[in-house]
Every structure is written in C-alpha cells, then in structure tokens.
C-alpha cells in the first residue's frame, strides 16, 4: 500500500475526512470516507465525483467564505471553523470542526469528528455555567434576605421607639420609689432589646464591612480609656445588684494616650458584651476588672473575671463563632461575642479569651492605635465642643429652645418625639407626611426638621430634595435630620447624599435625639453658606387615595369560614387594652374609617405599578393591622411591602388579593365587635370612668 494511502486511511480512522476544494462550493474526497461522513452525507462518492459540501451544510457554506479568503491570501498555517453539529441519518448529533489549509498548492479542507473529546469539553462548560447560575441564584437569595431582614428590623424598632419614649417620660414624672424601680427596669430592658436588634442588623449587614473600611482613619479616633470608663459607669449598678465589684485595672497614662482605630459607639458595645458575659459567670463577692495595656502599635484591652474559667472542652475561638452560646447556655442568641469578633477584625484588630493562671477567665481585644491624623482630629474635636462626651442629662433643659418640626407617619412615635422635645424645653410640632412638612415650612420657620424616611406620599429623602430646591440661591440652609428604621451606616450615607445634615436610627434614643437636634442647631448660622444641595430628582407626586374598589362584601363567602384570626383579634384587643371596651371600640372605629383609605392607596399603587408607593402604603397599613394582632393580614401587608421595596411587582396583584381577603375578614370582625359592644360601652363610657379605673390600678 502506498504511503499516501496508509496516511489517508490513518486519518479516516482517527475521525478525519480530507477534501480538496475545487471551487464553487464543490470538493473532491481525498482518502477514506469515514462512517460518520456516510451517516451525515450519504454514501461514499465514487472516484473523482464532486461533492457539493456547501449545499449539504449551511455551516460549511458560511465557513467557505473564510476558507477561500485564506486560500487566496496563501497564508501559512490554517483557519478553523469552530465547532458545529450535524445530525446524522440515524438522528445522532455529530460534533465537527473544519480547518482550511494549503498543501502542495492544493486547497485542502480537513473535517474532524470531535465525538471522542466533545463530551468531556461539554461537561467542563456545563459545570462552569451551572456554577455561574448557582452563583447568580445565591446572590439573589442574599439580596432578598437582606431586604427581609431590613423589614423585620424596621418592624421591631417601631414599637421599641414608643416603649423607650414612654419609659423616659414616665421616669420624668414624680413616681413612688417602688414604681420608679419598675420603670427603670422597663427602660433598661427595652434598651437591651434595642442593642440586640442592632446587633442582629449589624452582624448580618453585608455593606457594613465596606462602609467601615471607608471610614477607618477618616473619622474621630475613639479613646479606649474613655470607653472603658463609660462602660464601668453604665454597668456598675447591674454588677452591684449581683454583688460583683466592677473596677478599672491599673494602666499607665502613656504619653500617646489610648486612641484607637474604630468607632466609639461600637467599642462601647464590645465592652458591654464582654461585661455582660463576665457578669453571667462571675461569682458573688468577686471582682471583674477592665484593664488597658500598651502593645507595639496596638492597645490591648481586657475584661478579667474570677469565675470558673473557659469550658475545658471548648476552644476559645469557638466562643466567638456565630450562634455560639457556651455550654451553660447562659447567654442569649449567641450573637454578642460574634459581633465583637467581626467588629474588631474589621478594624484590623484581634479578639480572644483564655483561662487565667490564677483562675477565672480573661476576654481581651486588641485594636491598632489611631494614626496621627485621626488623633489630631480627635484632639481638635476635644478642644472644641467635646461633642462625643457630651451626654445631655435626661431632665436637663436645653440651653436654647428650638422650634422643631417632626414629620413622622406613625402617630404614637410622632407624639412621643414631640413630647420628649417639649420636655427638653423645645417647641415641637408634628405633621404626618412630607407634603404636610413642606406646607408647614412655607408657613413658618423651624430651626430643625426631623423627617422620617418612610412616609406616605413623599419620602423623607424626597422631602429633603424639595426643601433644598426651594433654598437654592437663597443662602438659607434648613437643618434636616433623617430618621431611619434600618440604622445602617449605608442609610446614613444615603441620607447625607440626599441633603440631610444628620440622621437618627429608630428606636430614637432620648439622649441621641437631644444630642443630634442640639448639635445640628449649634451649627446653624442663618445666612451662612451651608452645603447647597441641588435636588437631582423630582418629588414624586403623592397619589390620591382612590375609592375602594373591592368592598368587604366581595369576600362575603370567605367570611362564613371566619378563621382563627377573628378569635385572635378579640383576644389580642382584650389583652392589649386590659379589656378597655371604650378603647377597643375607638380603635375599631378609627381602623374602619381610616384603613380602607390605606388599602385604596395600595390598590392604586399596584394598578400604577408604583413600587415605592406600594412599599410606603403597605408599610402604613401593616402598622394599623398589627394593632389588632391579625397575623395573616399583617403578613399579607408585609409581603406587599417587601415586593414594593424589591421593586418586584409581578406578584403584587396576587398579594393584593390576599391582603384584600384578610382585610375584609378583619373589617367584618371589627364591625361585629363594634356593634356587639356598643350598648355595654355606652352604659360605662362616662368621661371620667376610664381615668378613675386607671388611677385605682
């Protein structure tokens, strides 16, 4: 057999078919006709028979343009077609690749059957693309959970604002000692709950790391000694109650001081978490010591107790893991030490725990010393107003009375903030939304405006934009403080971008409220060139409440199956009002009058596909529904709020139907409650009766 024939047979055996191009899309077979060629293009051509490959395969016809160009240019090497798939007569798919070459002046086309390697190649691509899809899904899940988390935290902080405010106001009253003790306990516990909520938010907030990295080195460096002293001051009463001494250990007053990288409020919380931990394990009549040491470029802080030491079967680093509760489960959610770890590590520090040689345990953390710039900035701040350490006393009146406008849609929160500000000696008045705030500002001047972020119609940020637009070119600068229920630093950043001067997180702490309002007002110089924020987006038009399209009657059938929710409504109302019939009736009447308007807003928002409006309206209705403890209705409203926030309105119509159904059930029940209770209430509802009962209690 001639060498050429051996070579051609070899090629055919390896899955190659060799052709010479004759022009006009026609070829002559060189060598063998592999079985796959027969499967695709029929029987072997005889002798010098021309094969119109271009007619047989649109892909090859297309490739021939590139191949002809290649042959014309007499380029060295080859030009490849890339992979394509032909279907054989038996239905099998055959992966192929063609290459054009020049050999001995002949135009050669080599077609290779890739079946042997194609499967492997496809598997690689399949795996890689599946991974990409999984990655995309994961990102979406994370995003959804973040939105949900923010909604939950927002819901949790709303009632807490009210609780904190109520306790604070009660604390200012002339109460008997025994009662004052309970009020203080209530205030302390609501503040602890607030810390836990913030802990959850911060521990899971994905944007925190970036934000804090941005912050490092650019803001006031906190003084670790001042934080330790503050912690001792705050925790001493609790330790005393447990007969444990809380002391500051010896520390050399080094010339460099104790300024570190970090944030004072978070360091306060780290000390707080470590002290709470020590308090749980320290025996009575022992000491817990906070100490500081200088360590090359770092400040080392520790909390020593005289308890049993660390559990012998647990590695110290496990104590700082997420949801780690220790063996005795004496802790709470297992977030406290985890929060400490992620916070300290983000600042370039470290945290740890060990059993001390002399007994007891030591929880410590180490933070880098602040840079020179940050220190001098802090020193300058200390020479100035000393804002960081200024902690207004609860009952102390402000030096200057300010006129303050409070725009907040939740009536109870609004009234509390106003009450707290008035107690402080300011003159505060409230409005229920951004539009009313703009009207109020047209009528009179206010030193400070407090704007809730989420309000019906126009949001706090949109209201700010409108105010800044009005100010443009006038030289005026209205002090605006935003109030957010989410409390992340990202929110603060967004508020500042929107033109606000400061921000407050819900639940609004009394001290923080006074500090923010008064510090902002101190910077107020009428006519001075404050930052001119040109509004860059239009204020959204507040949609008018459309008349209710679906009445309760439309779901009359479902009312017959009145679910457990209705029972729960009655029980819930009795529990929350202490069986106060008048209050129950009043709550029901208010809901029956106002809530349909909120539902109409939701309908309108769904019809107009206005996601922001939907989120705001659903948020508002959710708050009203929660008063009646109607979990299904609250869940339906929350679902719509989440859809609105996520700007995902595909399911909004379905969600609205659920809400309408739940709403109708509640409406029906409240009408029933109202009609059933009417006569009894009338006989008891003399103006003074409620007050008398309250006093008697």
């Amino acid at each position, binding site marked *: 057999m001639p060498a050429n024939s051996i070579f051609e047979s070899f090629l055919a055996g390896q899955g190659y078919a060799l052709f010479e191009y004759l022009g006009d899309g026609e070829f002559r077979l060189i060598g063998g006709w592999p079985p796959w060629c027969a499967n695709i293009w029929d029987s072997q051509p005889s002798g010098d028979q021309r094969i119109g490959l271009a007619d047989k*395969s*649109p*892909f090859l016809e*297309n490739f021939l*343009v*590139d191949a002809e160009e290649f042959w014309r240019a007499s380029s060295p090497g080859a030009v490849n077609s*890339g*992979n*394509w*798939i032909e279907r054989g007569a038996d239905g099998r*798919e055959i*992966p192929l690749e063609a290459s054009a070459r020049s050999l001995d002046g002949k135009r050669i086309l080599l077609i290779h059957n890739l079946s042997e390697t*194609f499967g492997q*190649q*496809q598997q690689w*691509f*399949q795996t*890689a*693309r*599946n991974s*990409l*899809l999984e990655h*995309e899904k994961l990102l979406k899940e994370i995003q959804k959970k973040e939105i949900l988390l923010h909604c939950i935290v927002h819901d949790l902080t709303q009632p807490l604002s009210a609780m904190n405010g109520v306790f604070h106001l009660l604390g200012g009253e002339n109460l008997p000692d025994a009662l004052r003790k309970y009020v203080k306990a209530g205030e302390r516990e609501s503040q602890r709950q607030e810390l836990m909520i913030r802990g959850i938010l911060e521990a899971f907030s994905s944007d925190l790391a970036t934000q804090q990295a941005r912050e490092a080195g650019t803001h006031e460096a906190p003084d670790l000694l001042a934080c330790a002293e503050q912690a001792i001051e705050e925790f001493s009463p609790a330790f005393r109650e447990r007969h444990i001494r809380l002391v500051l250990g010896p520390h050399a007053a080094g010339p460099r001081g104790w300024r570190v990288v970090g944030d004072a409020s978070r360091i306060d919380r780290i000390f707080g978490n470590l002290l709470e931990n020590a308090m749980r394990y320290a025996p009575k009549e022992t000491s817990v010591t906070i100490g500081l040491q200088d360590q090359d470029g770092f400040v080392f802080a520790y909390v020593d107790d005289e308890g049993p030491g660390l559990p012998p079967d647990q590695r110290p680093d496990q104590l700082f893991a997420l949801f780690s509760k220790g063996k005795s489960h004496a802790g709470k959610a297992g977030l406290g030490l985890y929060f400490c770890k992620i916070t300290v590590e983000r600042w370039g520090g470290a945290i740890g725990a060990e059993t001390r040689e002399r007994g007891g345990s030591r929880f410590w953390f180490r933070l880098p010393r602040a840079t020179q710039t940050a220190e001098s900035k802090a020193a300058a701040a200390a020479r100035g107003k000393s804002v960081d350490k200024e902690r207004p006393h609860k009952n102390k009146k402000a030096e200057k009375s300010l006129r303050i406008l409070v725009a907040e849609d939740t009536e109870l929160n609004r009234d509390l903030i106003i009450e707290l500000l008035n107690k402080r000696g300011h003159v505060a008045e409230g409005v229920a939304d951004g539009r009313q705030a703009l009207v109020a500002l047209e009528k009179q001047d206010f030193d400070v405006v407090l704007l809730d972020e989420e309000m019906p119609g126009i949001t706090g940020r949109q209201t700010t934009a409108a105010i800044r637009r009005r100010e443009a070119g006038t030289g005026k600068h209205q002090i605006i403080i935003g109030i957010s229920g989410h409390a992340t630093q990202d929110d603060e950043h967004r508020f500042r971008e929107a033109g606000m001067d400061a921000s407050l997180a819900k639940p609004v702490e009394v001290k923080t409220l006074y500090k923010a309002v008064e510090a902002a007002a101190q910077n107020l110089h009428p006519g001075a060139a404050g930052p001119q924020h040109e509004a860059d987006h239009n204020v959204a038009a507040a949609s008018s409440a459309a008349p209710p399209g679906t009445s309760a009657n439309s779901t009359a059938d479902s009312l017959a199956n009145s679910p457990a929710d209705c029972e729960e409504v009655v029980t819930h109302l009795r529990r929350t009002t202490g069986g106060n019939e008048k209050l129950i009736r009043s709550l029901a009447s208010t809901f029956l009058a106002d809530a349909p308007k909120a539902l109409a807003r939701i309908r309108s928002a769904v019809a107009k*596909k206005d996601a922001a409006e939907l989120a705001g309206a659903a948020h508002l209705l959710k708050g009203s529904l929660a008063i009646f403890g109607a979990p299904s209705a609250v869940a339906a409203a929350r679902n719509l709020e989440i859809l609105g926030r996520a*700007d*995902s*309105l*595909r*399911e909004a119509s379905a969600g609205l139907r659920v809400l309408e159904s739940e709403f109708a059930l509640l409406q029906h029940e409240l009408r029933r409650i109202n009609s059933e209770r009417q006569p009894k209430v009338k006989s008891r509802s003399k103006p003074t009766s409620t007050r008398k009962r309250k006093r008697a209690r």
Partner: protein
Amino acid sequence: MLQKKVCMLGSFSVGKSSLVRRFVASMFDEQYHTTIGVKVDKKVVNANGEDFTLVLWDIYGEDAFQKMRMSYLRGMHGYLLVVDGTRRQTLEDGLALHDRVVAEFEKVPAVLVLNKFDLTDQWEIEQAQETQLTAAGWTIEHTSAKTGAAVEKAFLHLAQLMLAK
C-alpha cells in the same frame, strides 16, 4: 424554496436551544444542556401566504468562557435576541451584543424574545423597561419554551418582518 437565515443570539442559559427545539420538534427538556458551537436546523413556515424555509442558527451563548464569532452571522436575514426574563443581567448582555451586531452588519429585522415567561414569580424585567424598549423600536415577545407559549408567534413575527423588508 426561499430560505432565510435566522440566528439565535443571547447569553448562556437563556433558552435559545430550547426555543428552537420547541419550534422545530415541539419538544422541551427541563434540564439545562449548554450549547457548544453551532447547530443548524430548518423549518418550513408560511408567512403572508408564502412558504419558505427558516434556517435556524442556534449559536452558543456568550459568556466569560466563549466569545461569539461574528462570522457566524454573515448573511443572516434576521435574528431573535433571546433574554431570560428571570435574569435581568441577560437583557443588558443581550443589548450589548445587539450593539456589536448593529455595528458590524447591515441592519436586519430582529425580535426581542423575553423567554421563561412561565416563571412570572421570578420575573425581573420591569414593565417600564419594556415600554422603553418598545419605544426604541424593539418588537418584543414573551415566550416560554417550556409551555410553548408564543414560541411559534415569535418566529413567525420575525418571518413576517423579514419578508416585509
């Protein structure tokens, strides 16, 4: 018979192969099989009372691993720009691909296919965005290769646009 070359363009896993399979063979496979290379299918259609063959070039989806060869589009009469409606990014990637096509080839009819319309609960393309695209001249079809909804309509719509040209 008159032949028209139609290319299926779009990101990976948007459902290009599934649309062709549904249109040509009335079949659908739940499992995702990535396409490597090009697969050419044919189907005879009747549009405006005229029978002609659509030569469907199912071209692999572009991603970080495979860039599309523009030479595959040579001589095409129209294309379906396929987008996965549950992945907003595929719309942006698809439109970027369209820009490259327009820059290199003579303008040909195209239909924007928002596929996987059966997954409405995961839909990420907003109505406002669709309105903008329509205003920009796009013909949009909402298809589901899974249920077959609007698949034939999308191809026939393109066929009519190609015949009208």
